[in-house]
């Protein structure tokens, strides 16, 4: 039987771990609230952008942007993968990477090359060997759009120059604080099928040229989607971490209970032994 002292120190160390996981759980919970607020705050912009772009994709416009036209031949595709910077958030990143890999492998089987841009250091280390062309990591809990321009531009330029023919986004979708689902969506060419009722025959007045306005608009549109993705991923990360830490805290509690039982048994055994020694000692003296 393990010594009493050893059991006691083991209980102590598990208790410390429990304190840490409990603290992390609470920190994650409060960060999640803020991340969700940020997510909601960025939504109107993205929605408005979507409306305008859908209108343009459906309308009879004088100028069709590159991002709207579908390219028939696909030789190389781009992926933007959004992950967290830190671990300890359950299966969040692993599930996402599985999904991304599935989709990447499908392209590779068709002899299509893949370029990857990543947000978050977890994705960087996971996809290093698949050809990462741009990365943004360590953006903190409140990323600014500025931190992302560089990486986004690398991919948009690649598309415009014809180096890639499709661009996909791999991100976590925040369903609720218990559920996050990874998904792969096509960013470019823009899929704008949902707003069919908006099929209209009027066109905007453009100032300056329609081309310039639409070029800027398309870029901002893609950026807003990716920004939304990054912000959403932070909310996912925090809620996943909260859950993971909560179960870690619970497990630590269970372990402490079990060890305490073992400890008490051992203590009782040693007391019984002591008493029996004293009694037998006394009996021997008489």
């Amino acid at each position, binding site marked *: 039987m393990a010594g009493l002292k050893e059991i006691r120190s083991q209980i102590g160390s598990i208790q410390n771990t429990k304190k840490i996981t409990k603290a992390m759980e609470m920190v994650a919970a409060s960060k999640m609230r803020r991340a969700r607020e940020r997510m909601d705050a960025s939504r109107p*912009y993205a929605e408005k952008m979507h409306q305008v772009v859908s209108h343009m994709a459906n309308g009879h416009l004088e100028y069709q942007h590159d991002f709207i036209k579908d390219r028939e031949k696909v030789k190389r595709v781009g992926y933007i993968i959004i992950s967290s910077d830190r671990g300890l958030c359950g299966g969040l990143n692993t599930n996402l990477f599985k999904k991304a890999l599935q989709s990447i492998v499908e392209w590779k089987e068709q002899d299509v090359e893949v370029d990857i841009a990543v947000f978050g250091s977890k994705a960087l280390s996971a996809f290093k060997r698949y050809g990462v062309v741009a990365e943004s990591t360590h953006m903190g809990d409140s990323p600014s759009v500025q931190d992302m321009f560089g990486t986004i531009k690398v991919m948009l330029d690649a598309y415009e120059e014809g180096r890639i023919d499709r661009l996909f986004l791999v991100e976590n979708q925040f369903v609720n604080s218990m559920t996050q689902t990874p998904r792969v969506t096509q960013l470019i060419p823009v899929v704008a099928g949902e707003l069919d009722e908006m099929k209209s025959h009027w066109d905007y007045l453009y100032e300056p040229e329609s081309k310039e306005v639409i070029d800027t608009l398309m870029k901002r549109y893609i950026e807003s989607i990716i920004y939304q993705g990054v912000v959403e991923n932070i909310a996912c990360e925090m809620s996943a971490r909260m859950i993971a830490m909560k179960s870690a805290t619970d497990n630590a509690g269970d372990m402490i209970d079990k060890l305490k039982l073992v400890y008490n048994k051992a203590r009782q055994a040693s007391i019984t032994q002591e008493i029996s020694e004293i009694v037998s000692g006394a009996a021997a003296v008489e």
Partner: protein
Amino acid sequence: MAMTMHLDVVSAEESLFSGAVQELLAPGVMGDLGIMPRHSQLISTLKAGELRYKTNDGEASLFIAGGILEVQPSVVTVLADTAIRAEDLDESLAEAAKKRAEDALDGKDPDDMDYETIQAELDAAKAQIEMIHRIGKTLR
């Protein structure tokens, strides 16, 4: 009571203004644009500057770092940028992002000098924006 239209000013990071306005003055790239209710549909890019609007309570203004203006007869939306955008600055950020990826693949430390300098430049630009913002507020 004067006729009003609904104005939304949103940026990727937050919603800046939402409410009824009588008129709007926006810094279009081709020159300032005055928008009144029932304007025909228009899309314009905006440059950095002051966005002025008249509500029923009086005039107010906001600084925007550029963006896009979308006008419908009764709804006006300003999609504001959060930072001053310039082709060369974007270019350098793109270069930095590429370089970071290359460094990471080579196993080098991503937080090298180049990144730091660009970050410093960005911070300076941010401070500039804030300053312009303040000036804009005192001027109105």
